[in-house]
């Protein structure tokens, strides 16, 4: 067994004339948290379905836990855990019965199953809820039950398809602490998400757009590659109207509205907060305050989304 948990090479899946995943290649080493990002319909779920053996690739191949997904989907399924988008639990069954059922589905039985269910309950902080009907639990707890069901059989690799959709922020943070803990114990995590703040937890990120993997790297390297220059955050009133004046100046790379303020990105040495503030003020903005900021993955996402065609760059970690 190598230290490579997932190896995708030229993975492609077509549905009729539509290419959902187009020539995607990447590697995920053991124990890594790999974030798979992209807009709806970018091909994230299709990639997961191929890697988990649910559908077979049209061309290309992938090795998961050392098994080929096209040739040996059953071996793949045995070594992975999968948590689908809707946390497909049985809501009319108690928490414990859900755990026991999924344990049985993976071939666990008897005392081993009982013991493992107890461990998982402790790990996912579900103590005291074993007899509660799953349907009566809030989303955040259901999500932990679903995670528990997916890790009961100690999979080496865990696939999470938008695990935090519709879950409150506190539960999301707790959930990610659990994920980080599993990763430290050498479980490989392949996760898709819409929440870009969560992607910061990932060791590496792959960005999908229209079926292609357009960016791949650590969060820091992605920011450096895709959002170069100096990032500043401006606050004040009348900023949107003044933004246009700033955009036309030389060495200004981008001016994007961000929350109530503006993200201003310039060539590294051409501008500073003082000069940006005075330009915005003279263009009609009031109470302007500008300070140095840090690029976020959202900036990366926007930069990738508005990228010039065929400018896909691959940053090395």
């Amino acid at each position, binding site marked *: 067994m190598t230290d490579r948990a997932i190896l995708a090479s030229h993975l492609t899946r077509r549905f009729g004339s539509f290419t959902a995943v187009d020539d995607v290649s990447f590697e995920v080493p053991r124990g890594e948290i790999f974030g798979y990002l992209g807009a709806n319909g970018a091909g994230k779920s299709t990639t997961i*379905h191929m890697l*988990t*053996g*649910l*559908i077979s690739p049209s061309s290309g191949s992938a090795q998961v836990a050392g098994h080929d997904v096209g040739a040996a989907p*059953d071996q793949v*399924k*045995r070594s*992975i855990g*999968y948590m*689908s*988008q*809707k946390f*497909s*639990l*049985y*809501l*009319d*069954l108690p928490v414990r*019965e859900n755990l*026991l*059922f*999924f*344990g*049985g*589905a*993976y*071939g*666990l*039985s008897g005392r081993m199953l009982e013991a493992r269910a107890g461990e998982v309950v402790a790990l996912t902080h579900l103590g005291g809820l074993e007899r509660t009907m799953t349907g009566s639990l809030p989303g955040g707890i259901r999500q932990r039950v679903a995670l528990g069901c997916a890790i009961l059989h100690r999979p080496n690799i865990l*696939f999470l398809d938008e695990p935090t959709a519709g879950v409150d922020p506190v539960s999301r943070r707790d959930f990610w602490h659990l994920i980080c803990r599993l990763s430290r114990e050498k479980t490989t995590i392949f996760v898709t998400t819409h929440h870009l703040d969560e992607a910061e937890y990932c060791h590496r990120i792959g960005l999908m757009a229209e079926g292609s993997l357009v960016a791949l790297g650590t969060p820091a390297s992605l920011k450096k590659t895709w959002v170069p220059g100096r990032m500043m955050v401006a606050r004040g009133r009348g900023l949107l109207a003044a933004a246009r004046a700033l955009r036309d100046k030389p060495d200004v790379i981008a001016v994007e509205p961000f929350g109530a303020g503006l993200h201003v990105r310039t060539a590294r040495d051409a501008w500073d907060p003082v000069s940006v503030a005075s330009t915005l003020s003279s263009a009609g903005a009031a109470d302007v305050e500008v300070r140095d900021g840090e690029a976020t993955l959202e900036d990366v996402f926007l930069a990738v989304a508005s990228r010039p065609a065929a400018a896909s760059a691959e940053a090395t970690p």
Partner: protein
Amino acid sequence: MMERQRRFLVRVGAMAGKETLHIRRDPRTLYLALVMPPVLLLIFGYGVSFDLDEIPLAISDADRSPDSRALVNAFCRSNEFEVVLRSGPEDAERWLLRGEAQAALLVRPGYARDLARGHPAKAELLIEGSDATSANQILQKAGAIARTESLRHASRAGLAASLPLEMHLWTRYNPAARSIVFLVPALTALLMAIGAVLLTALTVSGEWERGSMEQLFASPVGRFEIILGKLLPYLVLGLLQLLLVLAVGATAFDVPIRGDLGLLFVFGFFFLICMLGQGLFVSVVAKNQLVATQAAVLSSLMPSLLLSGMLFPVENMPGVLQVVSTVIPARYLVHALRGIQLKGSGLALLWPDLLALTLFASAILGLATALFQRRVA
């Protein structure tokens, strides 16, 4: 190898166990499977009966002998006739005309004498024939009573052989022509068909709807294991249903079980597999509970009711419908149940029905498994 079989059993067991929990959690399922059928049977048995009983009967006994009274008593004893008038023959005819009696039994003088001499004794039955169906039933019922009477006399006197040219009509297996005896096997088949198809259609399409089918497909549980695990609890439920319906039929309506009870359950078992397979097929194609419910009811209720010979004999159907009825499993079950329950038939006679059920079961299960691809919705 051992490990592989253990895992197979564990996975099927997990599926079946989970399904059992679903059933226990949802009283509607249990109601549908175990309460509704006996209730329906009771309603049909008591309410929807094609039988006439307490037929108003006028009696004119001119013989007034112990033998003639025995004949009159034989008519009175059964629940089917109710004596409304005892008088002379003219009065009896008048009552018949006025519609106050539907039949009149006239015993001529010399009835007992003829009996004692070994001559054919004569009694007449006048029937109000304006409703042919009722008249036919009265004729049958009266005939049955008269035959029982004459058999009694014949065996007592050993005189049966002295009437060489008399023709006897003798209805076997259901001499009183009680329609419930005929209906219980049919209703059993109908109720089992609806229950089994509907329940499986709902459980599998629910799994699609919930999204948990995708989760199952991502686990090592194979499609055959899913099907097996899903069907087992409903198979047990269906056999319980059969037992219950038979028990209600036997206790409330005296429907006999003359044949082998074990064979009856063998037929029930294969029929249930057919129906569960059909439900599975419906749900694989439908994938949502609403469509599945409608398709399930339509595909089980209508053909089982109309084309199985349950109500209308298959032999009387137009040729095309007779051909269609050959792929309706209920047809074979109804035939077999009637055979076993009423006639005490054995496998020697009923094997074609069992073969047909087995063929249908394998075909529908094979088709459903093939369509039930390991794919995401």
